[in-house]
């Protein structure tokens, strides 16, 4: 019975008695502000709305879900997912080389580059997004730039298309792709690349055979971090979509704020959650036994 062992036992005891008080804040937040709201959404999604008083009456109607099967909604669903996935893919395409380049820079330069990637995140999302309206419009700076580089000619005609929505998504979410990729790539030992080159692998194949497979956790994390908020994005499609490239987020938002149709909005949200869970399961499979993403 030395002093330290009794202190250790005391610590152990203290640790155990503290366990539930420490768990409480997280569990309370999760239960009251996450679990209950989600459960309520599920409940709402089977309910009906009174069109004059906007009161929800609970019931077990599937009409809100069957409405989703109408072609316009189905195509909106598909488009949301396509835009989200495509945005994530483009983010990956340009984010990977960027993250790789930064991860292979040294010291101060690397820190500055990382900071440069992060700072835009600290600038109002709305204002940044709105700036693209002026940048992308016909006769705007981007068109002039492309013409100057002889990449395109004539009018740009991209504003208020799914394309401009994707530009907004990609630029706004790129840091969310670059950062996890950077973390993953920095963990890839450069000597593995040397080893591959040494074993006869040309540079491009070193990337695909060694670097890319080893950064899969970062790739998956990046895709998840970009695709999910992109699918639920409200501001970007609202501003850059010209009000006609509605995505999940917009339609759900509108059901609650404009048409007052909570049950239908809730049904959309529930379907969204279902898609999400599917995507996360797929992501899990993609990572396999590798370490945790987040």
């Amino acid at each position: 019975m030395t002093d330290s062992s009794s202190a250790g036992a005391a610590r152990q005891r203290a640790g155990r008695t503290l366990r539930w008080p420490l768990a409480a804040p997280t569990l309370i937040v999760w239960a009251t502000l996450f679990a209950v709201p989600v459960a309520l959404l599920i409940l709402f999604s089977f309910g009906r709305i009174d069109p004059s008083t906007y009161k929800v009456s609970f019931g077990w109607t599937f009409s809100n879900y069957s409405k989703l099967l109408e072609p316009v909604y189905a195509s909106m669903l598909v488009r949301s997912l396509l835009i989200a996935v495509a945005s994530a893919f483009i983010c990956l395409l340009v984010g990977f080389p960027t993250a790789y380049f930064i991860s292979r820079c040294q010291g101060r330069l690397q820190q500055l580059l990382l900071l440069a990637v992060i700072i835009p995140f600290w600038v109002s999302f709305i204002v940044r997004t709105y700036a693209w309206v002026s940048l992308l419009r016909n006769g705007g700076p981007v068109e002039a730039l492309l013409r100057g580089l002889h990449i395109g000619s004539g009018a740009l005609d991209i504003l208020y298309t799914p394309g401009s929505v994707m530009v907004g998504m990609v630029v706004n979410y790129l840091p969310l792709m670059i950062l996890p990729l950077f973390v993953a790539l920095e963990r890839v030992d450069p000597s593995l690349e040397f080893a591959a080159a040494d074993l006869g692998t040309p540079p491009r194949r070193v990337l695909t055979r060694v670097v890319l497979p080893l950064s899969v956790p970062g790739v998956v994390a990046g895709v998840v971090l970009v695709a999910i908020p992109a699918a639920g994005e409200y501001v970007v499609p609202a501003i850059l979509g010209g009000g006609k490239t509605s995505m999940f987020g917009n339609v759900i938002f509108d059901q609650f704020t404009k048409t007052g149709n909570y049950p239908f909005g809730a049904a959309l949200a529930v379907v969204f959650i279902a898609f999400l869970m599917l995507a996360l399961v797929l992501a899990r499979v993609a990572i396999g036994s590798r370490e945790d993403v987040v």
Partner: protein
Amino acid sequence: MNDSKCAISLREVNRTFDDFVAVRDLSLNIADGEFFSLIGPSGCGKTTTLRMLAGLDSPTSGSIEVHGKDMVGVPPYRRPINTVFQNYALFPHLTVGENVAFGLRERKTERREMARRVGEILELVHLPGKEKRRPRELSGGQQQRVALARALVLKPEVLLLDEPLGALDLKLRRSMQGLMKEIQREVGITFVYVTHDQEEAFSMSSRIGIMNRGILEQVDTPQAVYRRPASAFVADFVGASNHVTVEVLSVAGTRYRVAAPTIGTVDCDGVDGIASGSTAAMVVRPELISIVDSGTGASLSGTIRDVSYNGPTVDYLVETGLGTFAIKTDGQRLASIDSSVGITWPASACWLVPMPSELSANETSEEATSA
């Protein structure tokens, strides 16, 4: 014609980084099938040299030839050279089998042939049937052997090994040294082995190159390097670390007569080209010094400052008027700390090397001991 016998030929290779000279005027020929070691303290340029051989770095000037073919500008993936990396650099996302087959796949080797060669080489490194394992499931020594197998399976003209045993514990290291030597004899490939551990280099290599501050100071067999070090640095680095500053009285070929303070006149062999009348360093090898009672026929008298028992040998540090001497004895005669003793050695224990500049002598000996 001579070139084909020569696996590697470096001529006046220089590599500078900004204002730092990593490798200076390095010329070296390594024969086919040789087990060649490059040793030196960290930062001496040996790893840079290895990287230039592997193609991961290129010389600022000079030429590198492998079997007569110029390698400068040839990217690593097109060189007939493979490397065993210090940290093994095994691909964690691949199994042992896939790791070993990595280069074969790059060469579009037929599937069955690939499996056969992978099996064969794993046999050679004593890891039969471990194809399906992941690298992280293996011990350090096993990982090291996978790295060796991965490089050897490509039958390179030259195999580079960059401190491959550095991460292993002493016992494992000794047994791996044996295995490495055995494998090298079996495959007959030229090994270029980089290490800072001179004992390791001595036990395995046919020849050794010693580098210091970017300069290749000596290339010779282990015995020659040990017995006839070309410089005070080499003498220090390989463990013949006592030196006495002497004045050269006369020169006859490589035979010198020198005057040492306290000791008097000594006739000894030494490095060619030390001028008469100059100051030089007389190296005295520790195992050839004997401890005697002070006064009776001793060359020097001093006080024992430290004793360490190493089983078969006992090492002493004896403080004398000419500095502290390291002495290795067979343990027959024991002396205790702070006792006054005499030390003596035969003339054949001495070897004369040029006097190192004050600065470099201090620095290098420090580096050597820390390495």
